[in-house]
Every structure is written in structure tokens, then in C-alpha cells.
């Protein structure tokens, strides 16, 4: 088994509470399914949509990324899968695709 990180990018944020509730239920169901099949190493966390960016030798601090930008990372999960093909296949059940978001599947580097 190898480890992968799902990075959840983008997705509409301005939705009605009913839509958000429905979406949450779908996410929970998806996570439960992944968990039941033994693919979740760590559920991960949701992230605030904005914060600070520290950059350069000067360590300049700026606000960002901006919540409005389309591919902000909204959370991550640590996944266990046979290989990247399976990790990709499993990611296809993610409800984020219904709201124009993306899942970035990144293998955890192995030594």
C-alpha cells in the first residue's frame, strides 16, 4: 500500500445552507465509504480559505491566497491505495466535482 494526499481545490463557496447541508451529507457518505474500505489513513482537515503568504529572502508577509481565487485548497485527506491509478479511481467519488472543484492526487514521496 502507498500513501497519497488528496488536495481539495476550488468548488463553489457561495451556496445556500440547504445546498451546503446536502453537500456535507454527500461528503460524509463518501468519507465513510472510503474509511469502510480501509483507504483513509488520516481524515485530514478543512482549511480556512485565506490566510497569509510569507515569501522571499525578505520574508514578506502578504494576505492570501484569496478566497475568491478558483483553485484555493479547501482541505486535505491522507489516503492509502495500491497505486496512483487506484487513488485516482477512488477520488472520482468525491462530491467536489458537483460544484466545479478538483481533487489533486499527490503520492507521498517514498524513500
Amino acid at each position, binding site marked *: 500500500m502507498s500513501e497519497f494526499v488528496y488536495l481539495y481545490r476550488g468548488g463553489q463557496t457561495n451556496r445556500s445552507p440547504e445546498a451546503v*447541508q*446536502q453537500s*456535507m451529507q454527500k461528503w460524509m457518505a463518501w468519507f*465513510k465509504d472510503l474509511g469502510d474500505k480501509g483507504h483513509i489513513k488520516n481524515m485530514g482537515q478543512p482549511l480556512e480559505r485565506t490566510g497569509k503568504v510569507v515569501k522571499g529572502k525578505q520574508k514578506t508577509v502578504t494576505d492570501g491566497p484569496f478566497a475568491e481565487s478558483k483553485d484555493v485548497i479547501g482541505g486535505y485527506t491522507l489516503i492509502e491505495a495500491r497505486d496512483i491509478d487506484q487513488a485516482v479511481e477512488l477520488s472520482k467519488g468525491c462530491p467536489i466535482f458537483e460544484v466545479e472543484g478538483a481533487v489533486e492526487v499527490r503520492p507521498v514521496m517514498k524513500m
Partner: protein
Amino acid sequence: MDPAEHLGEQLGEHLFRREHGRMVATLTRIFGVHNLALAEDVVQDAFCRALEVWKFRGMPENPSAWLMTTAKNRALDVLRRERTARTFAPELGRMLESEWTLAPAVAESFAPQAIKDDQLRMMFSCCHPRLPEEAQVALMLHILCGFSVSEVAAAFVSSHAAMEKRITRAKKALAGSKKLFDIADAADFAARLPAVHRAIYLLFNEGYHGASSESAVRAELCREAMRLAALLRAHPLAATPATFALSALMSLHAARLPARLDSSGDLRSLFDQDRSRWDANLVAEGQKLLDLSASGPELTEYHVEAAIAWAHAAAPRAEETDWGMIVSLYDRLMTIRPSPVVGLNRAIAIAQREGPARGLEEIRDIANAERLAGYPFYHAALGEFEFRAGRADAAREHFRAALALARNPMEKRFLEHRVAACSPALTAH
């Protein structure tokens, strides 16, 4: 079962809807009524944030408490961030100026009793005399019951745009009033209470008789009206005989909801409902509430309507209905709150007691009967009386007129059956 569906059940279909009223009412109290829009934004934001976290960490044991805490923390953030840029509730004024008093003052505002009072304050504020009745009802449904604009529009069979306009205008009026209604002033309270009763009554009626074709939506309106009345009963100043009578009337009517549609989804009139399907708990509850309403000299229209509903509930079979009593109660209602609809119901009761000819006579005597012209059951009643008097052709014309006015598929099917019953081909069988 689909796991998402299962979670939906655990969560309740409309968690947000359920919590929205409590949260907005409390935040509006803290922020001041002029910041109503801010309170709504903060509530929506708190809800969406909470769900974002639950997505990953699972649902907490007590989602309501969690949401309230999130709302409280968001409120503190807003108060700290904007205390120089905005003015908040004047009553809280000084408390908000210092960090020493801010947190305790906000915590106190989120105590269970305070939250209950806030909902009452909001309910009374929504029934501002400057607002037309239908705007009051829409506002209560939107703010206190958490119905979205499109849900309110669906409930009242109005267009989204028209409802949005109505609600926006009403909110503006509410936000423009200097402060929330003061529920501590006993005289003001007593003066506004009838308007609140009326709004709850209209909300219930919209659910019970309304035009929405979704029976689930309509049952929900009835439930919300009953919930708001229960909030009134829990407050010493609001637990008046009229409040109990209104509550009794709603319980007794709601008891009949399960029997209004038969197993094939067809509308059943009161006369041929399967009475064993009436909700016995609600009937008992209604009777208890009716007893509680019988104190003091005040006899309101709600007392009389509850008594009529009770007379129906007390009859195990339609044939055992005490029509004499019901007619005299309608006579009474005509003196308290005369209206063509009351007149129509009175005529129907008289026809039950004295035959269709008398019913037709009474219908002809209704004052302002032209106001009933658009009401399908006015024509249906005429059809029914003609039918019973043996004039099938005349009856069919009336039922056709009623059918043309039917407001939803159930009414339509019901009236189609009545039209069919008048046709000679069928009666010959």
C-alpha cells in the same frame, strides 16, 4: 439504504431551517434590529463553517448546541472587529465597549431563556402594524422558521421575484424600526398579541387549505405555526386564553391531516374521511388546550373555531355530528368575525341539518358572496347541494366551475370525481 440518505435522516431534513430562527433572533438582539442583514449573514456563515468542519470530523452529538456556539463566536468576532465602524444594539451599548463586559454580555444573550425570549421578540417585531398581514406571515416564515425565499414563494404559490420583493420590503421596514419589540412592556405586549395570533392563524391556514401542491410543504407550515404557538404558551404574558384557543384549534385540525388524503392520494372531505386515521394524540392535546382556553371573559374567534373543530373531533362517525351545535357556533362566529367564508361554512352546516334546499337559501343570503367567486369550494358547495336536491345537471355546472378554479392536483382530482358523479352514464350503473 443510501448512506447519504441515512445521514440526512439523522441530521433532520432541515437542520438549518430549524436553527435559523433561534440564531437570527438572538444575533439581531445583540447587533440591533438595524443590523438584521448582518445577523442573517453571520448565521449563514456560521452554519456553512460548521458543516465544513463536520464534513471532516463527523457530526457532533448535539449539532444545535454546536451551531449556537459557532454563532456566538462569530458574533464576538464581528462585535470586536466592527465596534468602531457600526453601532450595535443600544440596550447592550456600554457592555460592548470593553473586553471585560463583552464576552459575559454575549454569553448571557445565549442563555436558553434569553434565546426563547429573543424568538418571541422577533415574532412580535415581525407583526409590526405597518406591515400588511401577508408580509408579516412571510417574514415570520423566512426569519423565524428559516424558509428560504423560494420556499416561502412555493408555500404561497407566488413567484420568486414577487416574494423576494415582499420579503425585502418587509425586512427593510423591520430594520428601519428603532429597536426590536419590547416584550417586557405588558400593555404593548397585550396590544400586539392579537396580530401575532392572526399571523400564526394565517400561517396554519396556508398549510391546511393553501394552494401549494406539495402536501409535505403544507404539513410543515402547519407544524411551524404550532411551534410558534407553543413558544407563546411558554411565556407568562403570552399564555392567554386566546393563545390556548388558537393552539387547540390548530391541534384539532392537524389531527385530521392524516385522513385528508386516502391511500390513493385523493382528497377526502370531512364527511367521508376514515376517522380512525385521525391523530388521537393531537385530538387529546387539542381537548386539553381547549379546556385551558376556557378561562376569563374573552371569547375570541379562535375559541369558537376550536369548539367547532372539537364538535367534529367528538363525532366517531360523520352521521353522529352535532350539527345543531355547529350551526349555533357558526352563528356566533358570524357576530365575532363575519366573512363570506364563515357564511359558506355556516350554510354547509345548515344544509347538513336541514337539507340542501336550506343550504342553497343560506348561500344565496351570504353578504359579499362575490368575494367567494374565485374560491373553488364555494362552487363545490353549490354543486353538492344541487346534487343532493336531485338536480344533477345544475350540480355538474357548479362542479365544473369549481374544477376550473382548482389550485392543486388533489383538488383537481377531487372535483373531477364530483363532475363524473353527476354524469348520467355513471349514475345509471
